[in-house]
């Protein structure tokens, strides 16, 4: 059970949050112009990284805001948290 430092509400228990998978997978601006392969890449294909991963979380039982997290998925250590639209901290 993590402690997550919501960029808006501060440190809260993991129970208040929901994970949203890999971050920085931008929805294509022109989906109709993509091939089936390219669309599948966006829809389903994931890096699913073991190690430093950039991912999305939602403070669903708090301020309802989405934010990004850098987490080492091999040991669950949270390395950084930053708001949507902010640049990820350099690796």
């Amino acid at each position, binding site marked *: 059970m993590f402690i997550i430092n919501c960029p808006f509400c501060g440190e809260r228990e993991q129970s208040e949050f929901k994970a949203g998978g890999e971050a920085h997978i931008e929805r294509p601006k022109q989906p109709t112009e993509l091939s089936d*392969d390219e669309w599948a890449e966006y829809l389903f294909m994931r890096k699913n990284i073991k190690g430093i991963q950039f991912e999305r979380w939602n403070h669903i039982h708090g301020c309802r805001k989405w934010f990004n997290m850098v987490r080492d998925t091999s040991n669950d250590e949270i390395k950084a948290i930053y708001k949507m639209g902010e640049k990820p901290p350099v690796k």
Partner: protein
Amino acid sequence: MKNIAVVEKGWIGGGNTGRNTTIIRSNYLWDASAGLYNHALKIWEGLSQELNYNVMFSQRGVMNLAHNLQDVRDLKRRTHANRLNGIDAEYLNTEEVKKFCPIINTSPDIRYPVLGGTLQRRAGTARHDAVAWGYARGADEMGVDIIQNCEVKAIKRNGDSVKGLETTKGFIKTNKIGVVAAGHSSVIANMAGLKLPLESKPLQALVSEPVKPIIDTVVMSNAVHAYVSQSDKGELVIGAGTDDYISYSQKGSHDIVEGTLNAILELYPIFSRMRMLRQWGGIVDICPDASPIISKTSIKGLYFNCGWGTGGFKATPGSGDLFAHTIANDEPHELNAAFNINRFVSGDLVDEHGAAAVAH
């Protein structure tokens, strides 16, 4: 095929094999899944004799419970489909559920009363360690090299074909690599520059202290989320759903364990004074449609058998058999043709969400 090596980072059976709740069933909804899992079930039925190793396959039946009207519809739909696919399946009303497993609380006054259920009598459990050891012994006798404590570091390619594996114990030259790395499938895929439609998440299970026989079947519930059986040692073996975040740490959050036992006590209030003896986690690789991948890839000679999510153990003999076929012939067997990676591009998914007891 000859000259086969199995490379394992840890020890055999130490991954999800040794961590799962050992449920075996084949009552899946879609034709493709039914074919796959029933193929496995048929092999299970003679596996101890085939391996000359008692895998303790115990056909004590698996019951799935319905707790709301949509559950009833879904389970009936599945029962009809199973029957037409030649898979034994019975729909039980509440009284029949109670009769088959008397310790379930079937009172109409509980929060989510049991409205019915399905039963597959040929389903059951097996001893997970014995399966791994029995297969290992069999493979060893046939000349397969089983190399433990040997971690794969890189997949070497020659253009679009594989040419070998770099491991902690040295280089292994080969033109065919079958990856069966469960939760770590994506890690291996990334070595070859592939992305898979997988997310690896923690799945937890627990056992109680051993007690004298109290439940002689396997009961799964989707809406009241938990499943339970009793091992030959007397432990209640309990499992439930995954966490929602990606993790390779083999731990999960306590909320999941608590929620699981919460469901257990709703259905079996008599277990309140039982005690949890041991709890552990594994890493499961989940596909968006809750069905596995047994498939060639865009790289020649590289094959993946993955995406089994929370339910790979039940398919073990079948998935191995079909994967071997796929590798040997460089073409899928008709039973695993539907489980190719390309389905995520074309959209022909095998969506088993409704049919698995675990909401992925």
